[in-house]
């Protein structure tokens, strides 16, 4: 069959393509890089994790303490203002005012 021959010719052509002879070297060098990265990523020891957790707790506690100190320092000073002396309204509402004009 002619069509089958064309398909066979096509597949034969592609089968004959050679891969890069340095492919294995490329793969091995990629593997070396990936194993280096994996070896750097070591899990933290337990004491380091505990120190980190304790530091966070201390920072939060310090923040809360500072906040409490800030609110307790507020002083409630009352200022008495007698505004009757600022402006003597009786001068204006008195019937004798007309005389002073």
């Amino acid at each position, binding site marked *: 069959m002619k069509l089958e021959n*064309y398909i066979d010719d096509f597949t034969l052509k592609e089968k004959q393509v050679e891969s890069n002879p340095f492919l294995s070297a490329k793969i091995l060098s990629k593997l070396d890089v990936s194993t280096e990265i994996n070896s750097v990523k070591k899990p933290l020891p337990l004491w380091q994790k505990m120190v980190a957790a304790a530091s966070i707790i201390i920072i939060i506690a310090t923040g809360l303490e500072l906040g409490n100190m800030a609110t307790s320092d507020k002083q409630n000073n009352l200022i008495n203002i007698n505004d009757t002396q600022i402006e003597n309204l009786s001068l204006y509402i008195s019937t004798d005012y007309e005389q002073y004009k």
Partner: protein
Amino acid sequence: MSDEQLIRETLSGSNKSFGELVQKYQQQVFRTAMGFVHSKEDAEDIAQDVFIKVFHALETFEGKSQFPTWLYRITVNVCINHINKNKWQKLLNIPNDGFKSILNRSDDKKNALQQIEESEREQAIKNAIDLLPTKQRTAFILSKYEDLSQREIAEIMKITEGAVEQLLQRAKLFLRKKLTHIIGK
């Protein structure tokens, strides 16, 4: 050295043994990938991905099947994933490089018209193979590119030999249907 020995040494930490394993099977993996992607550069990228995956999964290889069978399975899976990932990219690319391929050839026996015809025929066959349903395409490539028997293909695809025969028949009919009006009988 046998595959089992090379695998044992690789698992013990010998990259040199893995290098030997790669050299032994790289053309097999590359050829299978060529059947799926029809491009030397893409096939080499796939081959790299396959062997990196094999390296990391080597300790899970139980030896129930032969190493080449296991390797073929990984290769087929990586190829199919690659195709699915690049499906949309391929739709945007114009695949016909017929004129470029003619300019690159120095075939004095064929004239330009014959070379154009050959190039268009190859492109049509390539496109038709790419349109095959996944299982038919896998069976077709393992049969045509790797010259594997139906029994071997059945083991790789984890199906019966009868199912492989059906897939190959359907693939043949599909390609005939797609290509007859372009190439003729």
